[in-house]
């Protein structure tokens, strides 16, 4: 019984709602390439996206908004490990093309409607 409800809700989510929230029309070949690179390098082994992954390095759902294209590219293309505040990242030395694909992937991810995640800090000191 619960399994049937689960399958029904899953079907409804994937066919009706997920397309509205994730904008599949924006998943270009570059975004797909970005996702492939994301998986090939197990970025989730340190970072998280949509809050999923490991908790060793920053959440990247909104990284495009936070850091911008130039910064992301320079980190990914850098021949020396990135890590200004400790904890080295692997120096991936990506090509311009691959780094751009990653940027596109992050840009797409940042626009997905995640029901309010990540939340805005509500105890931020005013300064």
């Amino acid at each position, binding site marked *: 019984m619960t399994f049937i409800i689960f399958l029904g809700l899953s079907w409804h989510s994937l066919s009706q709602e997920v397309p509205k929230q994730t904008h599949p029309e924006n998943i270009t070949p570059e975004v797909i390439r970005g996702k492939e690179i994301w998986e090939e390098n*197990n970025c989730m082994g340190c970072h998280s996206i949509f809050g999923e992954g490991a908790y060793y390095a920053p959440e990247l759902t909104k990284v495009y908004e936070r850091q911008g294209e130039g910064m992301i590219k320079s980190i990914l293309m850098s021949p020396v490990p990135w890590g200004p505040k400790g904890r080295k990242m692997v120096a991936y030395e990506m090509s311009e093309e691959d780094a751009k694909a990653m940027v596109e992937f992050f840009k797409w991810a940042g626009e997905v409607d995640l029901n309010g995640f990540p939340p805005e800090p509500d105890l931020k000191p005013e300064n």
Partner: protein
Amino acid sequence: MKYKSQKVAYLFFAFSMLLIVLQVIYGFIMGIDRIGFDEWFHDLIPFNAARATHTNLLVVWLLSGFMGAAYYIIPEESKCELISVKLAKLQFYSLAIVAVSAVIGYHFNWWEGRKFLEIPRPLDYLVVVNVLLFLGLILGTLWKAQQRTTTAMVLTMGLLFAALLYLPGMIWFDNQTMDSFFRWWVVHLWVEGVWELIMGGILAYLLIKITGVDREVIEKWLYVIIGLTFLSGVLGTGHHYYYIGTPKYWLIVGGIFSALEPLAFLGMALFAFAMYRKGEQNHPNKLALYWTLGCAVVSFVGAGLLGIAHTLPAVNMWTHGTLVTAMHGHLAFWGAYGMLVFAMIVYAMPELTGKNLFNTNRGQIAFWLANIGMIGMTTAFAAAGVAQVYLERKVGMNFMDAQNELEVHFIVLLGAASMFAAGIGFYVYEFIKFGPPRDEALIEATEEYKPITEN
């Protein structure tokens, strides 16, 4: 031991022991990374390689333990030798080869990069073949057996569904949300669904053996637990669908059914203690009793209570993707599945070898050190997780600034982990002392068996 083919379980148990030792070592590597010494390992074992290795070793040593348990339990429950020990050995060696190749591959950037399902695709196919062979042997044995007990059937159903549910994780999606959606079909429906059936089956078997309570009574409980598991666990998957690009109704569905999930674990804990109190048989293997009852209690706390502590949507909004998850994960896996495999091994080893090395001091120390150590680790993760939530999520501190504040909790974590590791060390030492199974340990199959009456 009553059937010669049960001996094959030993290989799987030994492999579990090897892998848990490695898992603990990789845990230390990550802990040391986190207290600021990441330079030590970075070039050889970057954090993502250590993490994939740590979690995958866990999955494989648990599965190896379950498979060993099945090879041990099924012949005895169905009063029938395994249909082929040769094939069971082949299945063991192929499992070992796949697992070892995967772990080595992770160190050379060969993986899928999807949390918990990192095994590279070509090896996925081998996993499928391997599991089919395993299921073939178990189902074949049940097929030709004279009796099929509820305990054996529940265990087998759990293993069968676990195999089927591996498949959705192998589909490629361009959309990260869809990818994640089906990844949880594997991961969640395993650990909070069908693995609980395996757990119920193994617990029932151990309780029948240790407490001597009638099979009919124990198996009635088993039905209740399966009911509770499916009632809560399937729709409880919703708690992974709060914030990944899926609709808002999952917040309600996931919230309600996740809140019910502890019931299945509570059921198992009550069940274990009720049987213990009811049991008149004074089984000499007290350590097996410790691990069995311990498993029932720690799984309720770790999987049940600590699970609900952060699956309420309003809480999870803040804790999602933080170390709070690691807190729950560690005690849940240890309590529900780690301790279960340990209980099974501690019960089976004297039977397999005929050596009555029950209740040694080292065995007792292993139990207490491992458990107190793991509770300490969970507490350290909890402190770090809650601090992270406030600093990073609530106050808005930069990720690394917040992480640097958390370092002290990882020093505590490493201390507790050292205790845990010592406990595991004692346990493994005891295991090694038993040595391989011996034919002298075979006892008459009919000796202790009463015919099972259907009611």
